[in-house]
Structure formats: C-alpha cells, structure tokens
C-alpha cells in the first residue's frame, strides 16, 4: 500500500494499464472467434450498464425540446420543436431570475472551489512536508471531519448562523464550503506524489523562505492536483442542495439547484411549470457534463488518489 502511495496516482494508473494489455497473448483470428461469446457477453453487459446511465440524460435532452403537450404524449426519443421557446421562457420567467440563479451557482461554486481548494492545498502540503508536534492528532481531526456527514452539520450550522445574524446572506452558503477535509486528504496524497522532498531542500539551501518556496516551487508542481481538488469541490458545491435551501430565504440569492426545486414544488398547481423545470435542469447540468468530458484526466486521478486509503 505504501508503495502504491509513493507514485502519483495518475502516473500509476496510466502505467499499470498498458502493462496488462501488452501481456495479453497476440490475438489471432481463430482465438478471437473462439472468444467471441465472451467478448460479446462482457461488452454487451457494459453496454446495458451504460444505457442505464445515459438514457435518463437523453430523456432530459429530448424533453427539453418539447412543449407541455409534447411532454405528455408522443414519441419519447424524438425531438420536439419547442426548444427555443422553452429557452426563451426559461430565461424570461420571473424577470429572468434563472440567469441570476445560474450566476449565483457559478459564484458560490467558483469561490468555494478556488479559495477552498487553495486552503486545502496549503494544509495538505503542510501535513506532507512539515514536521511538528501533534501532527498525528491534527491529521486525525481532519479524518474525523471526512467522516462526519454533511447534512448532520447543516442544521447546527444554520442555528449558529442564525445566532450571529448571518442567515440569508452569501456568507452563510460560501464560508461552510471553504472547509473541505477530504480535499486536505487529497492534497496530502498529491503533495507526496508530485513534490520530491529534495526539491524543497534545494530551495532551502538557496535561502528561500517557507512561503516563498511553496508559492514558487510547490504550487506549480501541485497544479494538476489543485485542478482535481477544485473540480471536485466545484461539482460538490454546485450540487449542494440542503445547505442553500436552509440558509437562504431571498430568492435572488438562490443557486440553480434550489431555484429549480422551487419551481418543481409549483408543478402540482401549474403543470406548465414542468417545461421550465426541465429546461432549467438541462441548462444547469450542461456546464458540469462539459467539465467532466474535458477534464477526464483530473477526475480520474482524484478518484484513484481517493481509493488508496
């Protein structure tokens, strides 16, 4: 396990994959034919698994192109003609409040990802590179933080925020997201993998201070780790529902998740809200899906670092 931890997770996953493939016996035609049932079976099952994951998303894409009557009747996996009308309705409903919700989501998740990620990166770097008294205890505290369910602290957070008058402000939803113990854990793994101790010793011999060494040498080497941590925090905050739901009463401060849930709660009385809900859902998952497709290398390395516990 410690040998596994010594190499950066991304490099290790990349290194082990091709090795296994090379080791496979050369595929002759006969062999492939003989293995055909196995190949068909395994890939067929995987296709079924993927269909389960993708079809609900495809349903959303098609539903976003339909008007309310199209939604309740007609072909499921066919485009309707109301996509532009739906978008126009979405962005003009209640004076264009959806744009505001999207901006709020981007703001909360962006600040939380960048600032929170940086704070976690500093702590993880310190746990990896520095020696100090009580290090084990402090790190134990971080691990306890990883294990406390978020939702169990949300109501206590609300009670505390209410006692100091911070509810219904941006701070109530931003400050709690800046503290992410799991990111500290990831940062420590990345720091151990990406920054050789010798590099820091060399910098010290050259007379650079601790902070300067971190900013000039540590940080650039940790950039891939930072992107990974920030990506996971961004997604986590974007997807967070209970915290903003409880903290915010002012609709202008809602992130998109709470806003869409608000519209959904009105569908019972006004069925035409369902097209709004669907269009809003479609728009608000688009940035995340694009981020995941473009940043594959980073979430892969984050997940493999998380699994070597």
């Amino acid at each position, binding site marked *: 396990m410690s040998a596994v931890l010594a190499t950066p997770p991304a490099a290790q996953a990349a290194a082990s994959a091709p090795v296994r493939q090379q080791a496979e016996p050369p595929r002759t035609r006969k062999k492939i034919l003989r293995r055909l049932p196995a190949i068909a079976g395994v890939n067929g099952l995987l296709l079924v698994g993927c269909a389960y994951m993708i079809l609900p*998303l495809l349903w959303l894409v098609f539903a976003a192109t339909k008007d309310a009557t199209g939604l309740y009747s007609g072909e499921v996996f066919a485009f309707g003609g109301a996509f532009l009308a739906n978008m126009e309705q979405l962005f003009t409903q209640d004076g264009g409040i959806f744009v505001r919700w999207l901006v709020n989501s981007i703001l909360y998740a962006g600040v939380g990802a960048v600032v929170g990620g940086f*704070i976690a990166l500093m*702590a993880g770097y310190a746990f990896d590179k520095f020696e100090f008294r009580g290090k084990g205890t402090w790190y134990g505290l971080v691990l306890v933080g990883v294990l*406390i369910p978020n939702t169990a602290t*949300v109501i206590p957070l609300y*009670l505390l925020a209410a006692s100091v008058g911070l509810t219904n402000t941006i701070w109530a939803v931003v400050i709690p997201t800046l503290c992410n113990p799991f990111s500290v854990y990831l940062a420590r793994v990345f720091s151990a993998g990406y920054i050789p101790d010798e590099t820091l010793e060399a910098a010290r011999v050259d007379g650079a201070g601790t902070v300067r060494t971190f900013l000039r040498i540590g940080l650039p080497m940790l950039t891939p780790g930072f992107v990974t941590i920030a990506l996971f925090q961004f997604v986590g905050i974007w*997807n967070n529902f209970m915290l903003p739901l409880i903290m915010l009463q002012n609709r202008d401060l809602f992130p998109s998740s709470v806003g869409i849930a608000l519209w959904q709660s009105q569908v019972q009385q006004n069925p035409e809200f369902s097209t709004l809900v669907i269009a809003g859902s479609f728009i608000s*998952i688009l940035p995340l899906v694009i981020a995941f497709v473009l940043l594959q290398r980073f979430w892969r390395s984050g997940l493999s670092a998380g699994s070597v516990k």
Partner: protein
Amino acid sequence: MALQIRSGRSATRRRSIPGTGGRSAAIFLIPFFTLFALTMIAPVVYAIGLSLFAEKRSGLGFGDATVDFVGIGNYLAVLSDRAFLEGFGRLAIYCLLYVPTLLITALVLALLLDAAVTYARRAFQLLLFLPHAVPGVIAALIWAYLYTPGVSPIVKALAAGGIEIDFLSVQLVLPSMVNIAVWEWAGYNVIILFTALQTVPREVLEAARVDGAGEIRTAFSIKTPLVWPALGVALLFTVIGSLQLFTEPKILSSATTAVTSTWVPNMWAYDAAFNRNNLPEAAAASIILALLAGLLSWAVTRFTSKERTR
C-alpha cells in the same frame, strides 16, 4: 485504518528538514483549522448546548417564553417521537437495500471493465461516470418524471406489456429512491474499484490462468479479494452517504404524497426546525444523526480492517 498508520510512519521516516517545523506549519494550517473550528466544531458544540434547553411558553402561549434546562429531555422526546422512529426505520431499510445494490453493481461493472476482452475502456468509464455530474436535485427530478404515469416512457412501456406499476406508491417509492441513488453513485464507485483492479499484479492473474481458472472464476475468487481495501473505502463512504438522505425524498415529496414531510430523519429535523419551530429538538436530532454516523464509520472501519488482516 491504513491512513493513521501511514501518517505515523512518515513522521518517523523523514528526518526533519530545517525550517519545516511548527511555526512554518502553522502558517499553512491556520486557515484550514480556523474554518474547521468555525464550520464543523462550533456548530456541533452550539447545537449540543441548544439541545439541552427547551423553550416553554406559559399557559395558552401568551406572555414571555422561558428557557429551561431539560438535560437529555429533548433527546428522549426525539427518540420517542413516532414519526422520527418511522423515519429511522425507513432509513434503515433504505441502507439495507441501497448499500449492497450499489456495491454489487459497481463491483460487477468494474470487473467487466477490467476483463481482458473489454474494448473502449475509457469511453465506457466516461459514460458510466457521467450521472455523477448531475446534481442530486436534478437526478431526483429526472427520475420523478420517469416514474410519473403519463410522462414516463418506462411506465408506458410496461403498461403496453400488461404490467401496471406505480413507482411512486407507498410500497415502491423506497426502492424507486434506491434506484435514483444507485444511478447517481454507481459510476463513481466503478472508477474507484476499477483503479484498484488495475493495480492487481499481473503475475497473480497469470498464475490463476495457468492453474486453469476461467475469467469469471478469476474475477470473483482472485481479483475481488485483492481489491477488498478499496471495497472497504467504498462501503464506508456509501454508508455515510446513505445517512445523508434528504435531497431525493425532498424532491419526490412534491411528486407523490407517499413521501411525507418527516419521511427520513433529516427531513424530520428540517421539519422540526422550519415548520414546527422547535429548534432544540432539531438540534438534538442532528446530533443523534452525527453520533450514529460516527458509530457506523467506526464499525465499518473495524470490520474492514479485520477482514483485511484475516
């Protein structure tokens, strides 16, 4: 846990580099631990304090309320509340259904990905992982539509085949919710388990092949035990995650009357705080949930580390 051992080992292994002592470490750690104290410790301490008192109004509710120390009175009130206990029962059934379903699904998909005959591994991984990019609210919304008769292609297809089924009925809404959570989290765990499977030494698999073990046999008798640590981590996070159940039932409660406002303990606490205005009881319920999570995490870690050393 392996983590603690690791931190202990690195402390003794590395000789200290000058200038990496306590004072420099403090500069880097103070921001995080300040936030940690403010957002994790302080709220819990404050909630514990609040949960020991009760607001009592005299007579018919006129006049000033008095705040009395009631000790564990609120905890007893929460634990003897019928709706809360029913919610706990539902949460327990949900965990018993969700945790094995999720882990078995994820393990089977990861083993399939790892099988030597699999093509297009990266594409499969991306497709399986994609639902994780969908916020819980929207995942619950999509499935709520896919469960609703009239809109749902699934209900329509089943009805055409002669099967009338109501996914949102009192009996089926819990498994329906398990399905939403599996959809959201299976891909995430597939990647974690697949990464662990990739580190299984090739010689071991070769030896199994020489001994005449087939792919399926190798997958379950050799690969699976070797990724037990990763499976343990997945189990731990799945159990903690399932205790958090709130978003999905909250969204489904607007689509069906089968989900009440106190359907799971988290919703009970939300209802106590915002509909019944009983903050002390909401605080007590949150503390009970946090304690339960701690207890379960401890049990899972004990269980998995024991299995590993066996």
